[in-house]
């Protein structure tokens, strides 16, 4: 169902800030860091202009930002923040606590390379360092998806069977600072979709006093971790329902993954984030020459949609996995997950791992084509680490 909305030329950061304005969270606590800064700038302007009811807390660090939103969410508020790279790393302690305390915080993360050496440009090392923190992780391809999934994330996070925080990952500069047309939905439609928050155990409900963060030793900690594992499994059941409601409301379809020209594809590339746009261009280019190639874009990396990915990749001739981060001493994160998903496949495709784009290194269509050609020419060697755009 196609719906027509007002289109505006926005940067990804502005689109995310606009989504936050329409969500109108009770509390935003944030600390500016490149390239997340414009999200905080735009949102602070909405606060200053009285366009939102949000209590904005300018804190002294990211550790404090996440701590403040944890406190706000425990009090029963709808709370948001945003960060990048070393800011996310500084938050790490409380990132883990937010998920373990089951607080449905939504945080756009503008992906940037972790230091050292210091670098402000895009890769996924920041978010990948948090992949086991218990947060749901989306990775978006463009500004529209950054806007859409920030709105969708609120509903998913707050669902009674989920109650988990969500990271919406958007590539630093490429998405955050790049201008694209974005379809913006009317305020009342967004307000209706996200609804009123229904906090569980709000601290401000003084008629029902509760304790957050008590000591939890060998007698119950294990059970609480088992509940988190269950909640992540529930995301696989709840997300399709939330996505369906999103489609009914706004007319845009989301899933765990996007399948691009996959129906008859023998060779499939798998990737996260903005590079998917370049891969689509290369798929079209190779298709014009008669090669049966396609793209599997992963929208949701945590929980990892293993079953769906497995069913899509089984029977293909070759699978090329692109990672924008390294796992030093082990396989890169996306490749490892894809390889693991194929373990039970009756017929495993040839598999290749390519690391690209670290520290914002540009990825060119020709390089992606070269990786596809490796697959087409029967030149994928499982576990041989290859690099795109690296000087030898």
């Amino acid at each position, binding site marked *: 169902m196609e719906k027509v909305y007002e289109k505006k030329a926005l940067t990804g950061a502005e689109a995310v800030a606009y989504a936050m304005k329409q969500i109108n969270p009770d509390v935003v606590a944030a600390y500016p860091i490149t390239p997340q800064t414009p999200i905080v700038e735009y949102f602070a302007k909405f606060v200053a202009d009285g366009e939102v009811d949000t209590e904005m807390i300018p804190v002294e660090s990211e550790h404090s930002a996440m701590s403040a939103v944890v406190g706000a969410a425990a009090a029963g508020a709808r709370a948001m923040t945003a960060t990048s790279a070393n800011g996310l790393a500084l938050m790490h302690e409380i990132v883990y606590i937010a998920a373990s305390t089951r607080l449905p915080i939504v945080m756009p993360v503008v992906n940037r390379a972790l230091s050292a050496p210091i670098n402000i440009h895009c890769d996924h090392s920041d978010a990948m360092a948090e992949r086991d923190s218990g947060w749901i992780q989306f990775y978006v391809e463009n500004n529209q998806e950054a806007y859409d999934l920030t709105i969708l994330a609120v509903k998913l996070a707050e669902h009674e069977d989920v109650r988990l925080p969500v990271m919406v990952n958007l590539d630093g500069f490429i998405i955050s600072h790049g201008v694209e047309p974005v379809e913006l939905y009317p305020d009342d439609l967004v307000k209706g979709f996200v609804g009123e928050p229904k906090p569980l*155990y709000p601290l401000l409900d003084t008629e029902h006093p509760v304790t957050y963060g008590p000591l939890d030793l060998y007698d*119950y900690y294990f059970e*609480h971790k088992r509940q988190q594992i269950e909640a992540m499994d529930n995301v696989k059941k709840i997300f399709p329902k939330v996505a369906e409601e999103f489609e009914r409301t706004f007319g845009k379809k989301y899933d765990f993954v996007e399948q691009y020209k996959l129906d008859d594809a023998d060779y499939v590339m798998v990737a996260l984030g903005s590079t998917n746009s370049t891969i689509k261009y290369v798929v079209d280019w190779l298709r014009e020459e008669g090669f049966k190639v396609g793209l599997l874009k992963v929208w949701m990396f945590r929980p990892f949609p293993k079953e769906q990915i497995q069913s899509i990749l089984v029977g293909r001739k070759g699978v090329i996995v692109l990672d924008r981060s390294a796992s030093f001493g082990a396989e890169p994160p996306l490749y490892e997950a894809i390889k693991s998903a194929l373990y039970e496949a009756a017929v495993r495709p040839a598999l290749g791992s390519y690391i690209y784009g670290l520290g914002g290194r540009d990825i060119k269509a020709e390089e992606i084509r070269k990786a596809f050609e490796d697959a087409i020419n029967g030149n994928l060697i499982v576990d041989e680490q290859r690099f795109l755009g690296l000087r030898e």
Partner: protein
Amino acid sequence: MALKGWKDIPIGGVIDEPGKAREYKTGTWRVLRPVLHEDKCIHCMFCWLYCPDLAIVQEQGKMKGFDFDYCKGCGLCANVCPAKAIEMKPETEFLK
């Protein structure tokens, strides 16, 4: 107190009502057990005042003994007793 399974407890480690510490029997931690020598006790109630677990039993201002559901054997009572009327003995002496 029987321990509950993961489906029967609030999520996120939240304690969902006040006063629940009463259900947590810290007496199971005890390695040393306080023993009261009534002949020495002067009922000054220092032990009652200092006990971190409200485990000193008193009636009308008189020291009557210990609540072993909660006494975790820290020995603070014996330490503050000016009459040396409380002696800490290893739990192993009370086996059987």
